[in-house]
């Protein structure tokens, strides 16, 4: 029996299970670059307008930090840069898809059910990788075709399409490796996300500082360095191919050597009796959430250190460009430029912290689906106490994560400008200002969990819409009422001199209302809803 026996059946199983999810993300991610290109054709019909946009916006350090470098003022080049953030989502989707069909399956014991049938040792990993690679390929081809359809050159469109494919493939393979290392899907996702975070951090550091060698260490950095539409460097595409081969070369031997259900990192024995802290719902919630709080804080702390360290250089990098200097002068000099950059990066941290809040709130749903909630609620634990034990982490988690981000940013930025105490305070405030908007989404997750538990994961889609509104809003010149739907639109720019805290109070009130409604509906509903 070959080690690949049964791969075909598993591929069909995965396609059957993901028949909605997979086409959905492929389609959405394929359409967005087209809309960027179409909007640029409309907004900047002349070369002069594009050049102004390139100098004034596309080379703005905060934009570069977020999206990657802009190599020229062609519509294609600007579109490729604008789509830089999408590559992060492609990477994330590919990573999570592979883990979902490997370690998650194994952890749930479903793979064992299949392993009893005729199934080769490599079949599980191979099937998950094949499906994800195929989805990435389809996404890349659709993207390239769409870009050509808007009127962009074929060569550049193909290059950008291949960049999309290979970025997805690299991170899909990373997901495959992570799934072999740990026993839990959560651990595998943690390793994968850490890898993605490191890739983003390296690219960000390389693209915003004077020397770009860190970007050459990051798959997200390679993506820009292929330079679609701006003198394509096809050979750069070899880097992700080599990285994929190398990652797979690690993942496959591990998948053969380990036992089913086991990881490489061993599991240790635990205590025979529970410590004093583990005596009620809050003690339990702390045990279930503490790892996430810790790792998110560490990750965001590191990101904050990098962002803060790059800010001062970002503020100065515009010297020599008369148009940018004029804009910078309007913003209040180099420090104003750095503030604008930090404002953008901290608002991104706010979006990520909202993701954390949603995830922590949806932990309740996971507890219910896994059958963990039922025995706890059959003890003297009140439903409201149980819910609050988790909601506490959904609300306090974003506060901790954003405070750490703000302080870390303030520390390195303060060191580079020589006024640590002042910057610590300012960046902490700017970080915490993101909290209420993140709370609104966490509150929405709680409400959906109480009211329509099966639909609770829809909160992720709401967050995706908020991200897209924030990203697309300016480019597409959307109506203000549409932008106002996202709570993040209302977060004040704390680093500017004049701002009012009223929106923060209103957002907090909204979040509390949503969460309270969730609590009230949860107390009345049947359990478990499977």
């Amino acid at each position, binding site marked *: 029996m070959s080690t690949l026996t049964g791969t075909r059946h598993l591929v069909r199983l995965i396609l059957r299970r993901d028949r909605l999810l997979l086409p959905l993300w492929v389609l959405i991610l394929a359409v967005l670059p087209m809309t960027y290109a179409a909007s640029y054709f409309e907004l900047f019909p002349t070369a002069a307008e594009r050049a102004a946009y390139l100098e004034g916006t596309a080379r703005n350090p905060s934009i570069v930090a977020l999206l990657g470098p802009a190599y020229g003022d062609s519509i294609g080049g600007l579109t490729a840069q604008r789509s830089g953030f999408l590559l992060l989502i492609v990477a994330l989707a590919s990573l999570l898809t592979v883990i979902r069909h490997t370690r998650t399956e194994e952890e749930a014991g479903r793979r064992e059910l299949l392993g009893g049938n005729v199934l080769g040792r490599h079949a599980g990993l191979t099937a998950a990788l094949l499906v994800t690679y195929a989805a990435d390929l389809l996404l890349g081809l659709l993207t390239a075709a769409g870009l050509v359809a808007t009127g962009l050159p074929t060569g550049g469109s193909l290059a950008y399409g291949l960049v999309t494919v290979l970025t997805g493939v690299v991170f899909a393979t990373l997901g495959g490796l992570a799934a072999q290392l740990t026993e839990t899907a959560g651990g595998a996702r943690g390793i994968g996300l850490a890898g993605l975070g490191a890739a983003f951090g390296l690219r960000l550091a390389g693209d915003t500082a004077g020397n770009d060698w860190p970007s050459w260490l990051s798959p997200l950095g390679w993506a820009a360095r292929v330079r679609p539409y701006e003198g394509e460097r096809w050979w750069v595409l070899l880097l992700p191919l080599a990285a994929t081969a190398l990652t797979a070369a690690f993942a496959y031997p591990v998948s053969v050597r380990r036992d089913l259900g086991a990881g490489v990192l061993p*599991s240790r*024995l*635990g205590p025979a009796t529970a410590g004093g802290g583990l005596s009620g719902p809050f003690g339990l919630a702390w045990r279930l959430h503490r790892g996430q709080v810790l790792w998110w804080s560490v990750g965001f702390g590191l990101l904050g250190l990098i962002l803060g360290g790059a800010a001062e250089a970002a503020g100065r990098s515009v010297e020599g460009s008369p148009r940018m200097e004029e804009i910078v002068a309007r913003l209040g000099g180099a420090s104003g430029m750095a503030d604008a950059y930090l404002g953008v990066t901290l608002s991104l941290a706010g979006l990520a912290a909202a993701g954390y809040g949603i995830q922590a709130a949806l932990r309740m749903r996971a507890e219910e689906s896994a*059958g963990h909630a039922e*025995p*706890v609620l059959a003890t003297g634990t009140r439903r409201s106490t149980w819910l609050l034990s988790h909601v506490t982490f959904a609300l306090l988690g974003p506060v901790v994560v954003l405070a750490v981000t703000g302080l870390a940013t303030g520390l390195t930025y303060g060191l580079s400008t020589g006024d640590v105490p002042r910057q610590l305070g300012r960046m902490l405030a700017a970080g915490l200002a993101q909290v209420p908007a993140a709370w609104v989404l966490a509150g929405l997750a709680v409400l959906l969990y109480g009211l329509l538990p099966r639909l609770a994961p829809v909160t992720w889609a709401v967050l995706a819409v908020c991200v897209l509104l924030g990203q697309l809003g300016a480019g597409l010149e959307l109506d203000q009422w549409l932008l106002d739907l996202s709570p993040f639109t209302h977060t004040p720019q704390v680093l500017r001199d004049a701002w009012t805290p009223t929106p923060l109070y209103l957002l907090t009130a909204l979040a509390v209302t949503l969460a309270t409604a969730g609590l009230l509906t949860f107390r009345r509903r049947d359990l478990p809803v499977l």
Partner: protein
Amino acid sequence: METAIDVSGLVKTFGRTRALDGLDLTVRTGEVHGFLGPNGSGKSTTIRVLLGLLRADAGAARLLGGDPWRDAVALHRRLAYVPGDVTLWPNLSGGEVIDLLGRMRGGLDPKRRAELLDSFELDPRKKGRTYSKGNRQKVGLVAALASDVELLILDEPTSGLDPLMEEVFQHWVRRAVHDGRTVLLSSHILAEVEALCDRVTIIRAGRTVESGTLGDLRHLHRTAIDAEVAAPLDGLADLPGVHDLRVDGRRVRFDVDTAALDAALRRLTELGVRSLVSTPPTLEELFLRHYETADRA
């Protein structure tokens, strides 16, 4: 208080599915009550209503003198529940789960906890994800049996336990009853029900079809006989209590009521038995028989 659980006319629907359709269940204080029914007949739904996890659409339910939905928290301190599929948090050790659930119920007896771990041969230091199905059940059982509660609600608690552990389980249930506790035992294992239960309730499709002592239900038993005899067969067909007689040359197969077993076997011995296989009725067969008779009646 005479009755620990008193349920009448319970109705619960999920969308179009009528999971409970006028179910009755009475459990007297101090007894082990067997709760039987095929898969999907509503046993777990009933238990979840009793635990205040589900709200009934109609009917009345009293648990330890209280309302299972309104007084859920107060009642839960007086009972312990073991689900049919105990799932453990992957990163908590078995011992931690036992203590956590015990403390949430208001404390457990450390001496009994140690005894239980010993007799169930359970290593409490292993992490939840590394336990087998049977060992996960043991964690749930130890947590419940070590608690000082009045009522144990056990939903197919021994699924995945080996026969030795089944013995241990029965020992501890007897001890719990001896200590004055009441046990509601939902089970598929007829031997377990016969060994432990004072009275049983059989449900089907969300409705109670029979309730009474095991003796009352004995008449439902039929044993399947598959024998080869030396002499040509006669005189079996007219024996009372023999059903579904099939003769194939010297081979004979039939079902026989427990009361008529002796007479039927004596007749076979007269014919000269060459081989004999007797199969006691499985629980499913018992149900099927019971439903047949219920339908005819």
